[in-house]
């Protein structure tokens, strides 16, 4: 079943237009065109509204909270650049989800795939650090993509070979990878000179990604994410592979009947999705963290699900929702520091965002149906 949460003008509405006056037809046309953009906005507004009620009930001032959040996200140039820094990993995990969800493959493993990408890049950045940047940077990214793709393909293989539900396997693989990361940073990859912190050594300076604005932490990883969003859009909507991918997502039986190799597509999609998440982990290490530690991802893989669902799994939309959720994450951290409101609320708001996208889509569905009976 294809997750048609928002957008997509439904065919049913068009049948009922015959009796309408031309004015209402024009209005309807404008509405049809704009609801694609309205759905996510209304969903966000609704979620922030429910968030405000929650804060109010718990004795916080929602006004102060949201003004702190807004300031924290967009108050000055440094804060704005921090939003884009936070948006970068979310765009990668969001793209990973968009590719998978479009094929109705429920990869919940972006968190783990992000981590293996980070591990591989850290390893390359430490052990091959003597290589010049123009070789090392592509190499470390390739390592991250490969690691993520392999983690994704493992779940894909278990799905096509053993019919094992990918929701469960990817989540279990997440746990295994995160436990593995904890093991690595307390054991084999632990920094030798330091004995207090469970973290790896710094990667070589040759492995660092160049920064866009030298005074901020914003690096070219952000630009790579933008370019990849466009590439993924073209791949999904303008190529025959993308067509097969979407066909499999909408109706696997029909796709099989049309001689599409759905198993191969599932494997490729899991590899692609895992590779994107792995690249996100890679860029987080090379561009920002510069070393491995156990919460190098504070849940970016999970956020990616909301990032993608908000924009109906459209890679171009992921650019915007990535920045939006980056602002939420960055702003809510400042909100926790300045207003004492636990930033874990962010996670609840994401859940409500997804539910309101669905609810808003359903409202349209029901109203269309009524018109169909006129």
């Amino acid at each position: 079943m294809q997750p048609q949460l928002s957008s997509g003008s439904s065919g049913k509405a068009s049948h009922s237009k015959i009796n309408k006056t031309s004015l209402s037809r024009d209005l309807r046309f404008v509405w049809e065109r704009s609801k694609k953009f309205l759905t996510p906005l209304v969903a966000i507004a609704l979620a922030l509204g429910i968030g405000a009620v929650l804060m109010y009930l718990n004795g916080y001032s929602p006004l102060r909270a949201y003004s702190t959040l807004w300031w924290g996200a967009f108050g000055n140039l440094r804060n704005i650049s921090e939003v884009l820094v936070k948006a970068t990993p979310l765009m990668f995990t969001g793209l990973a989800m968009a590719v998978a969800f479009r094929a109705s493959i429920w990869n919940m493993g972006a968190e783990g795939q992000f981590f293996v990408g980070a591990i591989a890049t850290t390893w390359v950045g430490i052990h091959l650090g003597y290589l010049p940047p123009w070789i090392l940077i592509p190499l470390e990214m390739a390592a991250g993509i490969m690691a993520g793709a392999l983690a994704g393909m493992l779940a894909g293989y278990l799905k096509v070979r053993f019919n094992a539900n990918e929701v469960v396997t990817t989540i279990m693989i997440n746990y295994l990878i995160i436990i593995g990361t904890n093991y690595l940073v307390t054991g084999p990859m632990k920094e030798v000179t330091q004995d207090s912190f469970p973290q790896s050594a710094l990667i070589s300076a040759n492995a660092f990604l160049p920064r866009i604005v030298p005074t901020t932490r914003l690096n070219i990883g952000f630009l790579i994410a933008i370019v990849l969003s466009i590439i993924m859009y073209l791949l999904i909507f303008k190529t025959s592979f993308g067509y097969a991918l979407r066909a499999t997502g909408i109706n696997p039986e029909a796709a099989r009947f049309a001689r599409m190799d759905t198993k191969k597509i599932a494997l490729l999609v899991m590899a692609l999705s895992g590779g994107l998440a792995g690249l996100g982990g890679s860029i987080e290490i090379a561009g920002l963290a510069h070393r491995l530690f156990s919460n190098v991802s504070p849940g970016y893989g999970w956020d990616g699900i909301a990032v993608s669902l908000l924009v109906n799994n459209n890679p171009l939309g992921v650019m915007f929702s990535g920045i939006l959720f980056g602002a939420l994450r960055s702003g809510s951290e400042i909100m926790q520091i300045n207003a004492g409101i636990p930033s874990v609320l962010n996670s609840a708001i994401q859940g409500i965002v997804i539910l309101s996208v669905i609810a808003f889509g359903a409202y349209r569905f029901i109203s269309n149906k009524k018109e169909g009976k006129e």
Partner: protein
Amino acid sequence: MEDIQWIVGLQGILVATIRLATPLIFSGIGLVIAEQAGVVNIGLEGIMLLGAFTGWTIGFYSGSLILGLAAVIIVGLISGLIFALFTVTIRANQIVVGVAFNMLGIGLSGFLYRTLFGREIGLLKLESFQSIEIPFLSNLPFIGKILFQQNILVYSSFVFCLLAIYVLYHTAAGLAIRSVGEHPRAADTMGINVFLVRYLCVLMSGVGAALGGAFLSIAYTNIFVENIVSGRGYITLAIVAFGRWKPVGTLIGALIFGLFYAIQLNLQSLRGIVIPYHVFQALPYFMTILALLSMRGRAIRPKALGKPYEPSA
């Protein structure tokens, strides 16, 4: 002498097995009922967290665990109702709704817990459920301590399982549930209210998950910590598939996983082993994947599982 130590050690592991299986039995049996009616509740993890938080908080403030349990059941019902609203009435994708539920569960329980108990995170304790010794049976050698010196929730989970078996396979209601999961249109034609059956079954899975989560914070331990459920909601999904969507199979699956958890805790506490403790930590998750691989049959799952029902106009 060594023989006795060995037996006592084994007994200890089996006592822990039953206890660690209990949350999985609650959530698992609830899920079996929902899946028999054709609805996959992936939001178990979030509902379990909400249950754990509610039971602990109400129990802590009121000083009454029974009141805590009542609140847990209400939270389970509300969660189930909202889940059913989205998956049955609105017919949204069940996985997407489940994911949203899990985010909500993590966010809400964490936010409320930190807001209410900010500074004393993980320090506050309550008086948890005590073991009840069943007369005569608890004196049986070896198994007496394992099966008949447990707390009331452990016994309730087994009763829940027996009730599910009775209702699903020995009543007209059970027949209705299973037909809705196999062929909703045929069931509809027979005059069964598909939506009503699915709503009720999803409510049961909500209550089961909430009770399972609450067991962790008010019966197995006496504290609430963020993410206390640590994947048990997802593990439940694997156990139900392993148990071939049947209560007995799910019960066996839950007991096997209880054993894994017990062994893992036991091995972690052993001193002087060279294997890093991470390996034992990883055991339940690794076993979950193996459990999924062990069942390949596609025919046994309810045919309409995961598919929303659209009544013909």
